[in-house]
């Protein structure tokens, strides 16, 4: 499936049980994300942004609907296949950075390559290259607790991109950053998208970030209520 979209979701439904109550997090979401696209998924808290991201990232399974990633139906993948798929084809950026505190910046970025079985020398070279791309070429040996919030998120972005995935899924990547750093991080994501051709799906409710995204999908109560392309109005 050479020209298949990176993600093709049809009628995605996800329900959570909270005690006796059932919460419909997603109520039939259709979404297609092409190769190299940057999509901001926006909406208020509880609109289903993170749930959608988890389903796209094969971290969770839908209760109904279908999802294809790179032309392969996720429903046909077993746990091992999904793990391998994430390892080789996806990158993740989290709001709280989620770096391993005992590893240096370089070692954190090496992690996906190590999981993919890339040899030590190449691994180190590519990790340094990725860190240089996010402007942290001089901080390779620093551990997360020696870095600022913005620097940590840039390490996380380098980690998400180092193995050249099809798509990077970012959940509130600027949620823990000040506005100036948030804008810088978003600009970095956009620049990396241009240079790497990797698709980005970014969940956010930060208006500044939403405005910078070339495509904006709005969710409300588990449904897509708008899907805008082009410069924000």
């Amino acid at each position, binding site marked *: 499936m050479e020209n298949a979209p990176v993600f093709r979701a049809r009628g995605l439904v996800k329900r959570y049980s909270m005690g006796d109550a059932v919460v419909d997090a997603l109520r039939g979401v259709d979404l297609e994300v092409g190769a190299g696209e940057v999509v901001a998924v926006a909406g208020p808290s509880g609109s289903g942004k993170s749930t959608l991201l*988890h389903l796209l990232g094969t971290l969770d399974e839908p209760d109904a609907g279908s999802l294809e990633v790179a032309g392969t139906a996720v429903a046909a993948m077993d746990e091992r296949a999904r*793990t391998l798929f994430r390892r080789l084809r996806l990158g993740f950026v989290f709001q709280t950075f989620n770096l391993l505190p005992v590893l240096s910046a370089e070692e954190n970025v090496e992690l996906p390559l190590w*999981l993919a079985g890339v040899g030590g020398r190449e691994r180190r070279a590519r990790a340094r290259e990725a860190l240089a791309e996010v402007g942290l070429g001089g901080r390779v040996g620093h551990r997360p607790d020696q870095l600022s919030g913005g620097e940590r998120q840039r390490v996380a972005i380098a980690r998400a991109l180092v193995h050249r995935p099809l798509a990077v899924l970012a959940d509130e990547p600027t949620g823990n950053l000040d506005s100036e750093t948030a804008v810088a991080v978003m600009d970095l994501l956009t620049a990396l998208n241009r240079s790497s051709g990797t698709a980005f799906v970014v969940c956010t409710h930060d208006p500044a970030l939403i405005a910078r995204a070339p495509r904006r999908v709005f969710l409300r109560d588990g449904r897509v209520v708008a899907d805008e392309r082009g410069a924000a109005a």
Partner: protein
Amino acid sequence: MRLALLALRNLTRNRRRTAISLAVIATGTAALLLTAGFVAFSFEGLSEAMIHGGLGHLEVVRQSTADSHTATLERSVAEGLDDWEALQARIEALPGVRAAAPTLYAAGMASTASGKSAAFLGVAGDPVRERRMGFTLKLREGEALADAPPREGEDRVLLAKGLAESLGLRPGDRMTLLAVDPDGMLNALDAVVAGLVTTGVQELDTRYLKLHLASAQRLLGSSGASNLLVTLDRTDRTEVARAELLRLLAGHQPPLAVVPWTARAPFYGQVRALYKGIFAFLGSIVFALVVLATSNTLLMAVMERVREFGTLRALGTSISQVAGLVGLEALWLGLLGALLGDALGAVLIVVLNALAITMPPPPGAVDPIDLQVLFVPEAFAGTIVLMLVVLTLASAAPIVRVARLRIVEALTHT
């Protein structure tokens, strides 16, 4: 970067907790080493005391006597060795044999001029050979038996203190020994008390007396010996030497048996079994304590890192890799803790031995003993293996917890 290295680094995250876990493991390891060292010392001390207390490493005796399973002190001269001198020469020619001593056992009644009497168990031997063999009786009063065979009418005996007290005898006093010879005739022997001794065994001290082989032969009207006791240069050669002796003595008439000291010392087997039981009990307590303490620590460490495990799973780390990471952290703890424990144990052994602590006499013994703890290399290696097993067990619950984590829930865990 390897999983094992990542696991090792993870131990540095909460240093205080890791230090406490290491201390628990090291203390348990050291406790086991000290116990093993003390048990080994007790086994060695007991076995050497029994061998050099009169059992010898091996006993050469008639096959019929060995088959009758009579106790060593009841070996009859009637079923003894008439050609013991020739046998002694052949046995002592073997390499690794320190000496072969004829022994004659004589049981009977001892009486005094004042009319007191008591049953005795007499052990007669050759003082020169016995000295060479390391047979030692603690002389409390008087003097030892002379090396040369006493002339008729000049027989001398050593009395155990308990027997001397019941007869009211002191060194220099005269006494009469009565015993039945192999023909069933009652013989008497007048002797002078040369000295008072202790055997080290309280019960035996009430009956024991020691005399020269020549005196006992006069008492029993025999030129034979009940058996030949053989001591070796090294206790660990007992079985090898036994096989050599059996080859050497094959074809002898009447047929001879070579009995190892362990077969004549059921007490040793019982003590060994008791000590092993105590060691196993203590070991199981240490085992349980370390499992419980470290299992809780590992579980806490996992619960604090739920989000991190979720991240690792999201990035494509397999369940087995994440479980392996937790397992490796446990194994590192076990290995480092056991190595620390080995070092601690070694230091404590040196210190305890240097303190020269005196312990009260063991049950049945009369003399206090100096506490010594031996280095048991097998125990040092064994505790490392044991602690790796313990920590593997302790990591089971945390591993199951990690393996069951749902990624989405783990990522949102607070």
